[in-house]
């Protein structure tokens, strides 16, 4: 059999071939062209990761071969491609581990012993993997594989084993392996729970060309979801503390829920890719924003999950409880299914993150959702629900009613979702105080947009879901093709800089921001917090941060546990432990007797020496580089080398930086630094100064730590802040004073420095990761100038650099050795440019 239907073969032969996976030459080329455009689109918008682009290319090239192969070779080819995909994304060693462990688990499922014994053995193997994953048993070699191995086996093995027990269909080893190691999985820890029966049964059960085409459509739909997600993630999300008015509360609720677009986008992309290889799987989501009841929502969102729970747990439970009466059995089974959903959600996060997720908000979320679904189900049992397979009897009244029901459901889900994803209950409760804020016209914006979308979306669409594409009439099929190609071309065009710059500065900036995947300003702040404290909220998919965390090795540099810092009990809270020495994978980290990450210095400067005191946080201290590799050390060496003459003064840079220090804490570091009689005090700011200063002040008030600085105390009093307030309320109270807080901090640094006859210098050092944190930079620089600093702006120090080459890791944005070299080189040049202002003659500046 040939897979391609060439030229003018007889209609009968062509139909037979098509039914067996054949495709006409024109259709084959059409699919390839669209895949080419899709590749361009993935590249232009940097969808997901570079690894995904490679995997997509492998899949698309693989498709070109696969579609031409005789049917009997296709599944084996798909398996080979899937295994190649794992090697492409991971490496050969990790791939072998995944395949080896996977084969072990599959092998146990097929042992020639009783089903019960096989189940017990699988549980034992699972327990061993749990021990390894949770680090009860040390296996560092496996660190990189857990999220992917987990996503391949944590649910699919349950489905597979269940079907082995009940399914009479013969088992094919190739199909089984293809099911577990299926192609796009290597890139996606969050993967839909594909049903084994559907995977087997729907394989090439429709016209091949139309199946492939639906795959392209779904991948495009996935990309659109992901681009919309980015817009929401970068531009609409708010921190609870930023919510002070009803309009912002509505924005918070909507944006928080819409972050789910990422999951639906990824699932479309994944399943669409499987369509290219003949797996005509059901839809993963069905217009979930248009759910008109809670049961409807449960049926429309993450359908694979619903099907999984239904098949494996719900029906068996209902059958078990039937003697109690069918309605009671259904209610009890539904409640148990939601309890199990909570448990399996925690189980899923365990495999992805390696930690146990036991947050009571999670429990309560599933309890509430389970309860409303039960109530809704009872209503439907009694009164039924509207269904249709072809009739069209929608009236304006029924459309209006449906719209209102959907509108109400949408907002209820938004509220429930905000509760589920909130960092804390107190934070979530404090959100609602925004209802007491001013009601402006803006408050109507989101309800109006949502209402319009729901109204349009609720207009009845005839037809059933998941029908074979070959049953679609030719006219609507051709229109669908046109829409896909036009959408592909439009998205690619708009991604081109020369095109989107014609659309006005605002639109161009927004489109530019959508063209790359990065953490939002809120997640960037969380990532920074994560260096110094354990974060719980990265266990929710509403924060993209969890994906970064899944890659972070368990033994990664950890400021919190390194033993580098100790508590002080004063406003600074922590300081470096004097004479501490640690050997890290990046070199030795030594702290001198004074608690500086530096070589030893005397308290009194040597004669004829420019002494510079450097204030900053972890990047300045040199987190992730060895002694002598910090930009401080590099600049000091260069200054001494290039100005070394007998008469010229020497240079000393004393590094007073402490990881995690926020602007107000630098006042304590300054007091210490001034006792070393510096000629220059360099304050290094690294972005988000306003928010960080505000946040720190709120923290010390909450912790009842005495504030030793009058101006800051006054601000706290003016804001009406006290220790009884939760974090969100505290931040909200202080937010209007953020400029005052930072200015007071800067002013004190300048005044104190000048009072000690030293020169205050402000260096702006950006974070290696570009992002919306930069929004605070202009104001920060303005405040620094206004306070009287000599300002050195190094905002563009990393410009044109590949971020991967200058930061420690994806989960750690501290500059690496190369990053420090760049900073040192630039800082040296800047110091030279402002030499006359900064380095006053030692005879004048020295306080020997």
């Amino acid at each position, binding site marked *: 059999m040939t897979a391609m239907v060439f030229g003018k073969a007889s209609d009968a032969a062509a139909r037979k071939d098509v039914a067996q996976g054949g495709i006409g030459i024109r259709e084959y080329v059409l699919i390839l062209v669209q895949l080419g455009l899709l590749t361009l689109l993935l590249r232009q918008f940097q969808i997901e990761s570079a690894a995904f682009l490679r995997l997509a290319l492998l899949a698309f090239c693989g498709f070109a071969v696969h579609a031409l192969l005789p049917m009997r070779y296709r599944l084996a080819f798909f398996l080979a491609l899937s295994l190649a995909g794992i090697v492409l994304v991971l490496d050969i060693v990790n791939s072998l581990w995944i395949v080896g462990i996977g084969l072990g688990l599959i092998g146990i499922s097929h042992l020639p012993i009783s089903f019960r014994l096989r189940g017990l053995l699988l549980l034992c193997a699972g327990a061993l993997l749990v021990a390894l994953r949770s680090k009860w048993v040390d296996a560092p070699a496996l660190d990189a594989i857990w999220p992917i191995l987990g996503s391949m086996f944590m649910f699919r093995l349950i489905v597979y084993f*269940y079907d082995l*027990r*009940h399914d009479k269909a013969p088992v094919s080893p190739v199909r089984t392996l293809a099911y577990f190691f299926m192609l796009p999985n290597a890139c996606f820890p969050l993967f839909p729970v594909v049903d084994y*029966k*559907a995977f087997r*049964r729907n394989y090439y059960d429709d016209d091949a060309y139309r199946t492939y085409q639906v795959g392209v459509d779904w991948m495009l739909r996935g990309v659109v979801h992901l681009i919309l997600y980015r817009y929401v993630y970068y531009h609409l999300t708010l921190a609870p503390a930023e919510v002070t008015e009803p309009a912002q509360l509505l924005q918070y609720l909507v944006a928080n829920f819409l972050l789910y677009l990422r999951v639906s986008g990824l699932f479309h992309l994944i399943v669409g890719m499987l369509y290219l290889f003949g797996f005509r799987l*059901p839809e993963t989501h*069905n217009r979930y924003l248009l759910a008109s009841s809670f*049961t409807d929502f449960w*049926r429309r969102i993450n359908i694979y999950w619903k099907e999984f729970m*239904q*098949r494996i747990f*719900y*029906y*068996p439970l*209902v*059958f*078990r409880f039937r003697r109690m009466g*069918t309605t009671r059995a*259904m209610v009890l089974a539904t409640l148990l299914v939601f309890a199990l959903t909570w448990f399996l959600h925690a189980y899923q996060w365990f495999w992805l993150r390696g930690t146990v997720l036991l947050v009571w908000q999670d429990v309560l979320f599933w309890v509430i959702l389970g309860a409303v679904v039960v109530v809704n*189900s009872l209503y*439907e*049992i009694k009164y*039924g629900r509207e*269904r*249709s*397979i*072809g*009739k069209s*009897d929608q009236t304006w009244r029924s459309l209006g009613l449906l719209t209102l029901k959907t509108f109400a459901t949408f907002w209820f889900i938004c509220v429930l979702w905000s509760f589920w994803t909130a960092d804390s209950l107190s934070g979530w409760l404090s959100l609602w105080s925004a209802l007491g804020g001013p009601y402006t016209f803006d408050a109507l914006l989101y309800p109006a947009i949502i209402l319009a979308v729901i109204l349009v979306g609720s207009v009845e669409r005839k037809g*059933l*879901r*998941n*029908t074979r594409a070959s049953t679609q009439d030719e006219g609507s099929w051709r229109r669908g093709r046109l829409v896909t190609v036009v959408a592909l071309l439009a998205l690619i065009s708009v991604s081109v800089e020369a095109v989107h710059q014609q659309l006005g500065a605002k639109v161009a900036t927004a489109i530019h921001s959508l063209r790359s995947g990065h953490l939002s300003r809120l997640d960037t702040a969380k990532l920074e917090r994560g260096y110094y404290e354990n974060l719980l909220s990265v266990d929710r998919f509403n924060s993209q941060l969890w994906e970064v965390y899944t890659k972070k090795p368990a033994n990664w540099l950890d400021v919190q546990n390194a033993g580098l810092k100790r508590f002080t009990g004063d406003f600074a809270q922590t300081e470096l432990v004097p004479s501490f020495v640690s050997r890290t994978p990046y070199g030795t980290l030594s702290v001198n007797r004074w608690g500086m990450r530096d070589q030893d210095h005397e308290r009194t400067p040597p004669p004829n020496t420019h002494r510079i005191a450097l204030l900053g946080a972890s990047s300045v201290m040199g987190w992730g580089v060895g002694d002598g590799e910090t930009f401080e050390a590099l600049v000091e060496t260069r200054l001494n080398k290039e100005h070394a003459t007998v008469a010229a003064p020497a240079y000393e840079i004393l590094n007073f930086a402490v990881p995690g220090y926020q602007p107000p804490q630098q006042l304590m570091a300054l007091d210490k630094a001034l006792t070393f009689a510096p000629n220059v005090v360099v304050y290094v700011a690294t972005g988000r100064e306003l928010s960080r200063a505000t946040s720190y002040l709120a923290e010390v008030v909450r912790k009842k730590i005495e504030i030793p600085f009058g101006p800051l105390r006054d601000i706290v009093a003016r804001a009406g802040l006290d220790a009884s307030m939760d974090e969100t309320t505290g931040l909200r109270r202080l937010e209007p004073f953020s400029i005052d807080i930072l200015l007071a901090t800067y002013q004190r640094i300048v005044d104190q420095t000048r009072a000690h006859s030293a020169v205050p210098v402000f260096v702006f050092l950006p974070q290696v990761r570009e992002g919306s944190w930069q929004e605070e930079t202009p104001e920060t620089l303005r405040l620094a100038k206004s306070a009287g600093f000599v300002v050195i702006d190094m905002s563009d120090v990393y410009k044109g650099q590949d971020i991967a080459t200058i930061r420690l890791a994806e989960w750690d944005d501290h500059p690496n050795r190369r990053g420090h070299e760049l900073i040192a080189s630039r800082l040296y040049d800047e110091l030279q440019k402002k030499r006359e202002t900064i380095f006053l003659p030692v005879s004048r500046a020295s306080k020997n």
Partner: protein
Amino acid sequence: MTDDIEGAVKRFILKEFLPGEDPAELTDATPLITGGVLDSIATLKVVMFIEETFGISLQAHEVDSEHLDTIGQIAQLVRAKKS
């Protein structure tokens, strides 16, 4: 009775879940579960109907789209159970 399995199931589905629908639209091959006509509650109602009407009993693992997605499949399952 067995010969009219399709007819009985069709009448039940039309009456219970698709009142007012043109009977011609519901064929033996119309996808009921995957097509979104039968949700879990409706599927269980169909299960109860065929158990009571045809005197058979179904297992939990048979309640899925492989056995109950179309009237044709339902009839096939009933026949297999009765034979």
